């Protein structure tokens, strides 16, 4: 089943500002990272998925339902955590999450039970009876996550869940999101402008920039295909580079290192052969995983 699918999705504000341009993407259930700089169109996409705003043109479907035609059916099965502060300071977390559970259609007792369960799962225990106004930013983010979880959705849309958190808080939040996606059996779309953050927990990554799709793929496909070998020799780096180029290996220089894309195991043999032939002192030869960020950087360059 396709979790989210869009077809030529376009959203312009007032005919001039383009938030999304011809976005076509389809993703499977799992943890999906949506990355892009501020203003790339991440929040606009989320609001279209929720049926809060209508796209200018194009089709969209969430859990097989069209949010422009039946927003209530989509919202029934989706939990949304907004980016901005959205908690009334004078209510306690337990009251707020219970009330919002009722607003999602839970009966009174079920709402109360599920609210305390949701708060427990995000790590709020006795504090939940205190007014939210006195909470730390980390606790507030947890309450926002709990209210998205209270009605047991099939998909969570998290808009910048790590916003304003310190490094430890970020790690804890990401671990929590990962747990929801893997142990709870709920698909998660997590939005961030920090690629390094979401690539740690995602199965699938969607990168958008200026409202356009840069790339959408499984994270494994993005990383494994581009593993490189880093070769370092104490001397004769130039000679080795020339020799490898003769062997039709696309060599790149990175400081004292030579980077060679790993095609198959034969690449090792070719490099070792070249080093032995030139009788150079090999310092190291290891496999390096490309960071996803580098992928996008090179991709953008090749497109330019």
């Amino acid at each position: 089943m396709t979790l989210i699918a869009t077809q030529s999705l376009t959203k312009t504000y007032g005919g001039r500002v383009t938030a999304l341009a011809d976005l076509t993407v389809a993703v499977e259930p799992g943890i999906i990272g949506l990355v892009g700089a501020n203003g790339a169109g991440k929040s606009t996409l989320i609001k279209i998925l929720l049926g809060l705003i209508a796209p200018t043109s194009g089709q969209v479907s969430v859990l097989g339902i069209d949010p422009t035609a039946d927003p209530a059916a989509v919202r029934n099965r989706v939990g949304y955590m907004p980016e901005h502060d959205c908690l009334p300071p004078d209510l306690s977390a337990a009251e707020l999450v219970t009330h919002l559970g009722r607003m999602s259609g839970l009966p009174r007792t079920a709402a109360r039970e599920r609210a305390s369960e949701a708060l427990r799962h995000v790590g709020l225990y006795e504090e939940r009876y205190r007014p939210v106004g006195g909470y730390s930013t980390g606790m507030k983010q947890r309450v926002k996550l709990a209210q998205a979880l209270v009605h047991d959705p099939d998909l969570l849309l998290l808009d910048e869940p790590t916003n304003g958190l310190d490094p430890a808080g970020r790690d804890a939040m990401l671990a929590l999101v990962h747990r929801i996606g893997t142990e709870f059996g709920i698909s998660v779309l997590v939005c961030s402008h920090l690629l390094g953050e979401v690539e740690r927990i995602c199965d699938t990554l969607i990168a958008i920039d200026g409202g356009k799709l840069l790339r959408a793929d499984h994270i494994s496909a993005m990383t494994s295909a581009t593993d490189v070998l880093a070769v370092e020799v104490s001397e004769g780096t130039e000679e080795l580079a020339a020799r490898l180029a003769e062997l039709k290996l696309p060599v790149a220089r990175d400081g004292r290192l030579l980077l060679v894309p790993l095609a198959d195991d034969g690449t090792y043999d070719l490099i070792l052969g070249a080093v032995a032939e030139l009788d150079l002192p090999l310092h190291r030869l290891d496999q390096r995983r490309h960071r996803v960020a580098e992928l996008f950087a090179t991709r953008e360059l090749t497109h330019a």
Partner: protein
Amino acid sequence: MPESTAAAVRPAPTGVIHDIGYQRYQGLRLGRRQVFGALYLHGLRTAFGFGRSAKAKIFPWLVVGIVSLVAVALAAVRSQIGEPVATYAQFADAMSWLVIFFVAVVAPELVSRDLRSGVLPLYFSRPLPRADYALAKLLALVTALWLLLGGPQLLMFLGAAFTTKQGMRGVWNELLDLLPGLLYAGLWAVVFASVGLLVASLTGKRAFAAGGVVAVFLMTTPIVGVLSILPSRAANELAGLASPSTLVQGVGIWSLGDLLVEGDPGEMMIGGFGPVYALAAVLLVAGATALLLARYRKVAS
């Protein structure tokens, strides 16, 4: 796997708390009507400060206390002198100032607070349509105002019914007096709630909202005053249209007649313009409600 074999050998422990992990919800999910009802009841409770801090209870209950006290006093005086001091409708009129202040405190509590804290996206990302949110809040405020006026009217009725000297017939006559009074209280409630909530929904700042509500209701009365002393009979008779309070009174004079003014034409004259007042009241409520819905179509999207 050594762990599982060890667990198999060990007898099952008793009285251990298990983390059963995340549970999917298989239970009932209520439809739009029940969610609307839940939001309406929540709003009604909020109006009287239930489920809120002690501070939020002070003002609503102060007003409730005053109107009840007046009603009890009226009933007591009546049982002594045997003559009604004020009809049910006159009571509602006399309490209108308190109703205005009640609206000024409760309407911001119902809508401005949600605007201020930014909680609306959490509502609107749920199945509940935006219009339902606005209408549930409006209905809650209408009910609160109607209870505020109707409750004391019921006290007056009980006082009169228990002290009547005409037996069941007296109780029946009293009931026939009460029902128009309750309807009139309903008119106050609908007009004041729709206008008050619209004004409060324009700002997230509670003090501004409260000030705005009072301003709309009180600043319009001087206009009525000016119009009613103009040297034109038609202008005088239509003067009441300029302010919500006098508009409601105009409708009352037209529909209830002597139940409100008791033979004596009083200071307010509407001439033959009664239907105009009724139409104006309907238009005012419909217009304010339409604007409220329009406001919530736009806000927080």
